[in-house]
């Protein structure tokens, strides 16, 4: 299976810009399915970005984050070719992680 995480990390000298897209339903618990039943909440609660063994960004999310969530941030430092580690966990205990090379 392909990873649920897509990452683009680009270094522009002193800062590294990171964009990530995660495949996840992000069900809020307020939406009904075709049968009229509420779809139980199922959403990512935490996303962590680590570089050089340190976390450079942590996202805490509620159910209001859009389906297939997107994030953009930047941090100082980050060398081309180095790895960035990304992981998420959701409210049902689901999790995934990946690494991305800084371009």
């Amino acid at each position, binding site marked *: 299976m*392909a990873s649920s995480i*897509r990452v683009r990390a680009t270094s522009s000298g002193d800062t590294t810009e990171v*964009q*990530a*897209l995660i*495949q996840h339903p992000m069900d809020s618990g307020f939406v009904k399915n075709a049968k009229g039943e509420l779809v139980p909440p199922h959403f990512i609660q935490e996303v962590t970005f680590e570089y050089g063994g340190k976390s450079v960004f942590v996202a805490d999310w509620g159910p209001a984050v859009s*389906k*297939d969530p*997107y994030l*953009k941030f930047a941090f100082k430092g980050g060398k081309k070719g180095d790895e960035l580690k990304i992981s998420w966990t959701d409210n049902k205990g689901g999790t995934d992680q990946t690494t991305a090379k800084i371009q």
Partner: protein
Amino acid sequence: MRSVFGSTFGLVIAALLMGATHSAAATDTPNPAADAKAFQKFFADKFPKVKFEDFVNGPYSMDAGLYKQWKEKEEFPPYEFALDMGKELFAKPFKNGKTFADCFPNKGIGIRQNYPYFDEKQGKVVTLELAVNQCLESNGEKPYSYTKDEMAAVTAYMAFTSRGKPFDIKIPNDPRALEAYENGKKYFYTRRGQLNFSCASCHVQSPGERIRAEVLAPALGILNAMPIYRSEWGGMGTTSRRFTSCNSQVRGVPLKPQDDEYRDLEYYLSYVSNGLPISGPGARP
């Protein structure tokens, strides 16, 4: 309830009046080339500020606020996952060892702009979606459902490899082809559903305007961006999905995906967008 009813009624009357103000005594000799020219001129005149090739960007070419949101979305477009899935499916061998590449000219790469075409052997219009399923079936595989998922993924990938190539739809010298084109055109302009709207009511007469605050896409170039990730759908959809959902929105019972009328409609609508680049897969509100 009352307001829904009232606004519906208002829309119906407005649509009827719009129709009635059109004088037009149409000549009955089909002339696709003249149609396409008039069609493109109509949109160029209506939206003098929109560059010709930007019509493939749908409502985003019409509204600055939307344009900005779109650009932000395109930084990491929501169709990315479908595209990856499509690439995988496209390369994955069937049980008999063949792949999609074996079914298509140029191994299926960079050919989106030639679909739909009129197949003289089958005597009908063949859309890309139909061709994908014909490929699967002729290789002993189960066909995809037409509206989303795998079909959207594979056509997304095929469109992606064709980005920038102008639509190049041909009408061969075969009376059946011209008839299919005319059928499609008729379907496009025919009012249907309880709201009494034709495709043209929304996408010719009112693009750039808002219906319940949504900006309508111009018909010119609308198929160049297919398949699309539509926020309203919360996912990907094919041309089939677009047509069927439009029919339901005007309170008409949709036909089956890839029924004759829909393929003919796609033939007409693609033909009059000839020259505009393929931009799919797209992202739409």
